[in-house]
């Protein structure tokens, strides 16, 4: 049975009833014989796609097939940062589309995702970096995205405890996007799952896709651990497992799976009111509403499906943290974990058709796909429903590598030394 609408009234009513009347947020669906669209992967992107397919494109016979449980993948493992401070033409409008959707998300899906526009501050430490950030900020403003350049004085007022006079990496200032911030990652998965379920989408958990059935070059369904499911269209949104699942249809992708780690400290009183990134190493930090410092850095840098990393990166991240804010030196680490990144060779995502008819691919989000979740879902839904790319996601083609049209936003990717 679909769950009730959440409101102040329902909260009061349940408070008086001792919280005995809440319904499960989504049904535990069992697979039907066939659907119009089967989405493989119940992460943020798969669930958002299902929601927009049902909500905006009127396709209701949709299933999301997830091998584990909703939220076990990267959607529940990321460091929750959202921003649209991109530089390249293919990227800026897309990530700004995501930011606008974040701004209206909670009303749209009737779920508190704790969207917090607390600001994202990228620090710079030398003149060249300052110039690069000025250019980025200008590109953002040309595209109607907010960006502000702060000098060292202004950064000092915001975060007085940073190590401004680090001998090698003095802080000269930062590029601030005030509309950036954080969103409660699990709530995004749960909120989209609930909203999609209310529109009739089947969310099928503990159901691993083991094969993609094709007929005359056309995808017609998926083999799963819970039996065969027929599909008018098959849509892949498997994040770190994209290569494995695409290989079931004979595709070879420009992707390597890598592990990225994240860290949370013991709870502290609030002292960092934005997201801050260190420009001279890879370290970024924010503080959760529970008080834990949430931080991270580089990928470990080797192919991995293990969802856990190694010590050198832990040391590297902590060294970055100490260089930026020495006061966290005595804070204890509470927990850390890893997630699977599908690193494309240019560091940018893929939302596209594939050489197999009726098979669509959403992949390659590297370590920046959380912020994209709403726009990724919307654009993928558009592609599946209309069989043509959404206007804000026309650059994310699968054949761009062969065409030499790579989107090299930061010179990252799995092996940036290859190009």
């Amino acid at each position, binding site marked *: 049975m679909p769950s009730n609408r959440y409101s102040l009234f329902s909260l009061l009513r349940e408070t008086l009833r001792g919280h005995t009347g809440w319904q499960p947020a989504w049904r535990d669906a069992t697979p039907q014989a066939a659907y119009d669209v089967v989405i493989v992967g119940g992460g943020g992107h798969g669930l958002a796609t299902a929601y927009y397919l049902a909500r905006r494109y009127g396709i209701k016979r949709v299933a999301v097939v997830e091998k584990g449980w909703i939220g076990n993948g990267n959607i529940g493992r990321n460091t929750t940062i959202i921003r649209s401070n991109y530089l390249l033409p293919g990227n800026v409008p897309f990530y700004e589309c995501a930011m606008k959707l974040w701004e209206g998300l909670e009303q749209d899906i009737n779920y508190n995702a704790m969207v917090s526009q607390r600001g994202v501050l990228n620090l710079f430490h030398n003149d060249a970096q300052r110039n690069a950030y000025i250019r980025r900020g200008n590109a953002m403003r040309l595209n109607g995205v907010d960006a502000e350049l702060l000098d060292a004085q202004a950064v000092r007022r915001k975060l007085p405890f940073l190590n401004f006079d680090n001998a090698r990496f003095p802080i000269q200032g930062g590029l601030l996007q005030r509309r950036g911030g954080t969103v409660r990652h699990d709530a995004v998965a749960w909120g989209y799952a609930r909203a999609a379920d209310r529109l009739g989408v089947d969310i099928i958990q503990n159901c691993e896709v083991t094969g993609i059935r094709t007929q005359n070059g056309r995808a017609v369904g998926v083999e799963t651990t819970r039996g065969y499911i027929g599909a008018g269209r098959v849509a892949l949104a498997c994040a770190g497992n994209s290569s494995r699942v695409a290989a079931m249809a004979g595709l070879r992708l420009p992707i390597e799976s890598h592990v990225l780690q994240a860290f949370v400290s013991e709870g502290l009183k609030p002292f960092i009111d934005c997201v801050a990134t260190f420009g001279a190493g890879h370290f970024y930090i924010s503080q959760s509403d529970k008080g834990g410092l949430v931080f991270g850095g580089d990928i470990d840098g080797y192919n991995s499906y293990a969802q856990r990393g190694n010590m050198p990166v832990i*040391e590297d991240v902590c060294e970055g943290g100490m260089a930026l804010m020495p006061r966290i030196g005595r804070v204890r680490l509470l927990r850390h974990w890893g997630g699977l990144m599908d690193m494309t060779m240019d560091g940018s995502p893929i939302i596209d058709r594939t050489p197999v008819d009726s098979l669509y691919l959403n992949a390659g989000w590297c370590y920046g796909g959380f912020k994209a979740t709403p726009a990724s879902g919307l654009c993928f839904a558009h592609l599946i429903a209309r069989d043509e790319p959404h206007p804000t996601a026309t650059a994310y083609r699968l054949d761009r590598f062969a065409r030499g049209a790579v989107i090299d936003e930061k010179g990252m990717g799995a092996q940036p030394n290859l190009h």
Partner: protein
Amino acid sequence: MRLNCPCCGPRGLEEFTYRGDATVRRPESPTAPAQDWVDYVYLRDNPAGPHRELWYHGAGCRSWLVVTRDTRTHAISDVVRAVDVARADKEGAGS
């Protein structure tokens, strides 16, 4: 993770640099079809399981190594010098 370098013995990961899949081969001729270059530069099998991959022992003997490692567990089953692999390849191709 520690790599057992044939020259230096078991050493910590921080001494090494990763260079990806060791099975891809650069096309022999610069005029090879574009698709061969796309395959070489961009496309990867990216297996979940044993993976043959290149590591460089930069803070040690400076050898290039071909490591066989299970990407699901990080367990390492084999480490050989890349130069030996290249020699064996050449002999195989010559015979």
